[in-house]
């Protein structure tokens, strides 16, 4: 059996779905962030698969754009996680919890 673009996209779609489900259902800040990481990595997989297999590229277009995109997504994800964890620590120091349902002085 040859592995084609469809297989990669299926895996990427499943991982993305799991990520969205976690991000929307979990109430712990850290768990939500893990869900978001899954979403981003599913996109990375899709980018790489498209870059390698897609027949859509016009002559002269560099398919390497997909690889480049992945590097930037990874970088941004790291920056976002750093800020998120710093804020989670700040909240934890004040409230002793990072549960989104209990961080609710403001009505959600």
């Amino acid at each position, binding site marked *: 059996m040859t592995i084609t673009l469809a297989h990669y996209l299926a895996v990427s779609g499943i991982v993305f779905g799991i990520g969205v489900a976690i991000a929307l259902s979990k109430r712990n800040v850290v768990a939500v962030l893990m869900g978001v990481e899954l*979403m981003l990595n599913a*996109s990375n997989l899709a980018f790489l698969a*498209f870059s390698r297999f897609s027949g859509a590229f016009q002559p002269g277009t560099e398919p390497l754009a997909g690889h480049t995109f992945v590097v930037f997504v990874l970088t941004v994800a790291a920056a976002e996680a750093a800020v998120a964890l710093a804020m989670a620590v*700040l909240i934890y120091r*004040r*409230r002793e919890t990072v549960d989104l349902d209990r961080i609710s002085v*403001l009505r959600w």
Partner: protein
Amino acid sequence: MSGWELVHHIGPSIALFVGAGIVLSADMLLPRGRAPLVMLTLLTLVVAGGWALWHANTGTSGPAFEGAVVMDRFALFFIFLLVSATAAVTVASTEWAQELDLKGEYYALLLVAAGAMSLLAQGNDLILIFIALETTSIVQYVLVGVTRKDRSAEAGIKYLISGAVAAGLMIYGFAFLFGTTGATSLDGIATFVQSGPEDARLPLTLGFVLVAAGFGFKMAIVPFHGWAPDVYQGGPTPVISFLSVASKAGGFAIALRLFYNGLGGGDTFISEDWAIMFGVFAVASMLFGNLGALVQTDARRLLGYSSIAQAGNVAIGLAAVAAGTTLGPSGVMFFLGTYVATNLGAFFAVIAISERIGSYEIKDYAGVFKRAPILAGVLMLCLLSLTGIPPTAGFIAKLYVFNGAVQAGEEWLVAVVAIAVVNTAISAFYYLSWVRTMALDDPEEETSIRTTGPMQAMLGLAATGVLFFGLVPAPLISAAQRAAEALSVPLS
């Protein structure tokens, strides 16, 4: 292109980023409290604005960096808008920032956010758009949590969680746009879409719906609005005043660029698909925002719901795609221009009044008109403009956007406009009942309310803007139209 030409091309953004570095270093190196942070920030903004003016006068220079950024009238319009909004917020927040531990960081982050959004307005490639958008978002998460107080931190983390999910959806959409069209540059995407391959409709639709999630988060349109009321209520008010106008302008700028340039304004096989999507978002935002605002008692939370409803009004302009006219996009730009003056004015007045009366509850605004006629007058003017009552700028803006939608000649757009008109009537309830509380109710105490000089100047400027664009809208309209023409330049 030589090195200097490349620098010149993204000059305003570079000036803002360098300025942010200078502000941070000055705060670190000079003795505490001695660094002229406000002056440095304003100087940076003047340099960035001047650089944009230089571009405007010498003629704009098209694409650079392999087509990743373009400097056209469209980008310049938004750079001017963002730089003036940032300058107004900087001046108005000087008093508040005095008590902040992280003064240097606050001003530097404002500049970074403005710089990233200027770059966003110039973005012409998915990679650059992604980076600029995320830089803006991450900086704004930190800004919302900048006081490190309980509520500010809570608002910050809620903003961050919604933003991270929206970014995840958006990047998956980018992956599908890239995979289907085989290009990351908007020109490449446009070339593909214009060749009209019907079998690519499904993946393209999936792509642009997910991308709209990321942009919709920045604009605060339903269903990506969840953060707005909480963040507006919990975040530091000066930061929120910045976020409410700049983030919205940035989101709409890039949505216009991607959808009108990349996916084709009115003359491609999928333009009606995404026009209907934005029409649905617009209706949902107006209904949700206005009905939510009806029951609010907190001034900031009310403005949060109001900003969702206003985003719905602007989104009508996005939906009004029609081949060969620029009425839709120029309506979006004109509306945003007047919205900057109106919403900043409303927020500044709320800051000035609430600082002194010590409450954000609307019932405590009773009789404010007797205690501070000018402050309350500016707030009333801005609320009338948000409702859309002549002779304010908000009236002309709504008229322009609604007219553009009707002119586009689609029956469903006429229905959307009808719903928008009904919504304007609903919004009059809460805006005008706030005005009535201020003007007619009796105050609990009679002492007059005073505010600082810089704040007065900014309030005066905002009120002038609201009245000027209401009475003499022609200059801003022609600027918006010329900017919109840059969007629909035929591909070479």
